[in-house]
């Protein structure tokens, strides 16, 4: 029973991380119908930048903020330079371009920093919290993960629901041409969306690095888990991303806990297949919003 409890806690903490990256995928997908397979690698790259900054004596929090800004700029640049020229081409082209970007980023990181996994500091202690005499599998750092991802989610929700900028962003994501006819500068808003996704990706990279073997490939699995979560959540709303990420995190934690960590990716594959078979448009998508 207490094992189950700890697996659950672990699943929640990982699930929040997958939610953050799933949010990045959703932000881009719903505006452009593109899955950015390089999103995890971009977060990897910015985390390496953070590690360089830390090595040069920059404080953790300054590095944190700087790297989120770099993630924003990188996402926006990706859209402008690589994605914009693909408009009107087959849907396979952007898939292949983001895959190409993924291997380029991993190659560049490997060439600069080497393949060996290195340490990355956590913002807070990683040893489990204690209640009375028992120690649970949830640390100060896990609390920080929870708070950081929730803050990001709430900030994005407020942006979308309560500001006119968010209204413009939603409109241009859902109906680009009509929005332009209403005077909305759709192009710049798409770039902004990719930038926001870049922030979420960078945050994910920073949160995953301390608890994994931080190297050029450490975001690969996180990306596909986030993709699974995003698909479960319907690939169209931040709330869906949150729920989908949590479901994925929990399932993977149970599979890893009871069956062994080598089966975690296979568990995710089964989960993804079930989700796709049950409903290719996502389990939490609103039928009304589906287009023919």
């Amino acid at each position: 029973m207490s094992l189950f409890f700890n697996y659950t806690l672990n699943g929640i903490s990982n699930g929040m991380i997958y939610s953050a990256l799933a949010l990045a995928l959703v932000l881009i997908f719903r505006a452009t119908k593109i899955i950015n397979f390089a999103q995890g690698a971009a977060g990897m790259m910015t985390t390496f930048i953070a590690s360089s900054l830390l090595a040069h004596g920059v404080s953790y929090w300054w590095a944190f903020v700087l790297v989120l800004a770099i993630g924003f700029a990188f996402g926006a640049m990706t859209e402008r330079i690589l994605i914009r020229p693909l408009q009107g081409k087959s849907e396979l082209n952007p898939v292949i371009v983001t895959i190409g970007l993924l291997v380029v980023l991993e190659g560049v990181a490997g060439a600069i920093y080497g393949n060996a996994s290195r340490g990355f500091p956590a913002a807070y202690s990683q040893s489990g919290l204690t209640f009375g005499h028992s120690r649970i599998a949830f640390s100060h750092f896990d609390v920080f993960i929870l708070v950081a991802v929730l803050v990001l989610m709430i900030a994005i929700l407020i942006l979308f629901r309560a500001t006119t900028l968010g209204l413009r962003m939603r409109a241009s994501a859902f109906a680009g041409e009509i929005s332009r006819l209403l005077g909305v500068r759709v192009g710049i808003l798409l770039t902004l969306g990719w930038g926001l996704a870049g922030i979420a990706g960078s945050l994910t990279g920073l949160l995953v690095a301390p608890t994994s073997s931080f190297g050029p490939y450490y975001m690969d699995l996180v990306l596909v888990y986030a993709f699974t979560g995003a698909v479960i959540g319907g690939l169209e709303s931040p709330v869906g991303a949150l729920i989908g990420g949590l479901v994925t995190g929990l399932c993977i934690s149970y599979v890893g806990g009871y069956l062994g960590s080598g089966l975690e990716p296979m568990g995710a594959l089964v989960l993804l297949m079930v989700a796709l078979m049950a409903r290719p448009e996502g389990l939490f998508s609103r039928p009304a919003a589906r287009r023919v």
Partner: protein
Amino acid sequence: MLRHLLFATFGAGIMYLVTSNISLFDNYQVGQIASFVVVLAGLSLLTGVNGQISLGHGAFMAVGAYTTALLMTHTQWNFILELLSAVGAAGVAGLLIGIPATRLKGPYLAGMTLLFALALPPIADKWPNTFGGDQGLTMTTPNAPGTLSPQEWLAWIQIGGALIVLVLLANLLHSRYGRTLRAVRDDEIAASLAGINVARTKVLAFVISAGCAGLAGAFLGLSTGVVNTGAFPLTLSIQLLAAMVLGGTGSLIGMVWGGILLVYLPQWSTSLSGHFNLGSGVSAYLATIIFGAVLIVAMIAAPNGIQGGLRWAWRRLPGSGSGVGGSGSSAAPGAPTPVLTDE
């Protein structure tokens, strides 16, 4: 079709001249190229002709390689049978992935196959007693007949396998089934209205393509003499995709270019980085970076690959007229990929 057989015989003749006149190390590489041609041809059929993307072909190769290696370790089966089992096992894996794939559009399918590529290798790590753990399983080629050296013999097996696969696939693409594959790629709804069973066509394409990958995996295992999980990383799957795009998506003969790139690009980039004193850290990754960069550039600038470029140049040659890419020399069935150009 006869034309394909003639072409294959011609190719075999040339390869005989090549392999008997080159050093052992080159035999090894020519054999590797042939192995890659097998998997790339299957991928080209799947993506170029049928319009389904796969980022998981490295994992299908792993299925094939491990199947053959396990049979070699535990049984005394006939060598051919062991190779065919690789095709069969990978085909079954292709079936399992292909069935849910029928309902998926490009980005979803890409994500699912990407996850497949990442999910399979850890399985082998999970049961080290069966799959040999880090050491892997050894694979041996049967004794060479006559005066052939083992390397020459293996290269012959691989080249022969590649030619057989190319002939079979070329005939397939020229048959009614080839038209069915293309019809499904171009417009699923129109195809199903025309009485085509879209789902079955797509699944079958996946099975055939995965089977090719399985054979190629077994071939590559024979080249290195060992299979382990490290041999099939995600980067392999992505490099296969890149080589297929560069060779010319949808073309079969263009996959020879792809195979050459897969084998020689890492070497060229190593010597390149040596030339510029970039250090061993860079040289290990330069090929990956080049593959990725070329993938991006190809999608943005030139979606028809090397074979498409050659065909384009051929058509502009004075005297070649406006005929379709010199039909006499064309063992490359199918038009250059509409999938990857404008819709």
